């Protein structure tokens, strides 16, 4: 059963009642909410995600609701609840859906230490996975959205999860787009399903793009890493790939890892093994079409 199979009322009832157990790859989240934006966001962006029954094991129990405290009447707010506790400060009510997405990223990066988690996008083509680590603002999400529009499978737009054997663990969820990249992707891909734009968030204007159904269907297939590319969007830049020394790529991964320190010695070995088996590049681009072509060639050439 998938989320789209739930008729309108049933979806609302589930969210207001026992919660909706949504499978995002290896992680099952039980979501509860009384807010219409959450119901709408789930119906739109998680339509193809598998729905688990109430007696299935949920890894995390979250809720997105107005805070229970007195401030409710001052200015409408929304709170993210992690099993009844409150890890974040509340946000304006219209940021409910982004807050759910940010909250889910936090759940995984703060708890799933069975994996080494990097702040990176991961896409895959022909059995080879491409890792795009980058600090916020480097255009990683735009590039990621552009590549999946051109047929790459989405594993994640934010969290690269590496298991003990060095394989990448998918967790396909809505791709978050910011500011200018929202329109860029709208123009680049007519079929892209982009939700409402929320303004004035801490990250600027934010919208989410539904992940391709095929990516969601293959969410249980781990992928072998083959390419590590550090992207940088630069106005006027022709799409250029420059080989990057593996030691430098390694340090970049360390810098973008959520739980490197926690993994101690084995984290060092795991990341070293990862860069050892990948081809590493720096990449500059402006035009998404050009970028997609470069990557398609790169994927083909990795035989």
């Amino acid at each position, binding site marked *: 059963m998938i989320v789209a199979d739930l008729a309108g009322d049933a979806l609302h009832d589930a969210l207001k009642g026992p919660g909706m157990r949504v499978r995002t790859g290896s992680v099952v989240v039980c979501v509860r909410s009384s807010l219409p934006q959450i119901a709408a966001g789930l119906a739109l962006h998680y339509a193809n995600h598998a729905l688990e029954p109430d007696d299935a094991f949920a890894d995390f129990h979250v809720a997105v609701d107005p805070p229970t405290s007195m401030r409710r009447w001052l200015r409408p707010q929304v709170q993210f609840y992690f099993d009844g506790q409150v890890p974040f400060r509340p946000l304006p009510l219209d940021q409910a859906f982004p807050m759910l997405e940010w909250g889910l990223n936090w759940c995984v990066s703060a708890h799933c230490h069975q994996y080494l988690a990097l702040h990176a996008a991961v896409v895959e083509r022909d059995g080879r996975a491409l890792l795009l680590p980058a600090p916020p603002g480097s255009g990683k999400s735009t590039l990621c959205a552009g590549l999946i529009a051109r047929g790459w499978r989405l594993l994640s737009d934010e969290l690269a999860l590496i298991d003990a054997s060095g394989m990448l663990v998918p967790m396909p969820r809505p791709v978050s787009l910011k500011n200018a990249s929202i329109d860029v992707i709208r123009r680049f891909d007519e079929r892209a399903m982009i939700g409402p734009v929320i303004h004035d968030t801490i990250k600027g204007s934010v919208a989410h793009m539904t992940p391709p159904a095929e990516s969601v269907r293959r969410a249980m297939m781990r992928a072998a890493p083959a390419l590590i590319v550090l992207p940088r969007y630069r106005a006027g830049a022709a799409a250029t790939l420059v080989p990057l020394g593996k*030691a430098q790529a*390694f340090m970049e991964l360390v810098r973008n890892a959520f739980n490197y320190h926690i993994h101690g010695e084995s984290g*060092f*070995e795991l990341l070293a093994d990862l860069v050892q088996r990948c081809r590493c590049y720096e990449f500059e681009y402006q035009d998404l079409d050009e970028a997609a072509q470069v990557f398609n060639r790169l994927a083909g050439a990795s035989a």
Partner: protein
Amino acid sequence: MPVPQRRVLDGELVVRDRSSGATHLLSQVSGTILVLLIESESSMRAADIAHVLGVTAPTDEPVTLSEIDRILLELERIGLVARVPA
């Protein structure tokens, strides 16, 4: 002190200090000096290091003693080597 974790990637050395967890990318020369100290299993004087480098890892421009001193100081600062009394 425990021997740091290390890997050579594309000819460069990355090391991890086992007690603090701090991870570093060392330059070619720094990496060579560190590995030299690790493999010698006893302390070495800067002059000896210079000699061994000159013999085993000659470069176009020989590494000066003052540069070796500078590198050793930096390695000490980040906790990868320690000075022992003569």
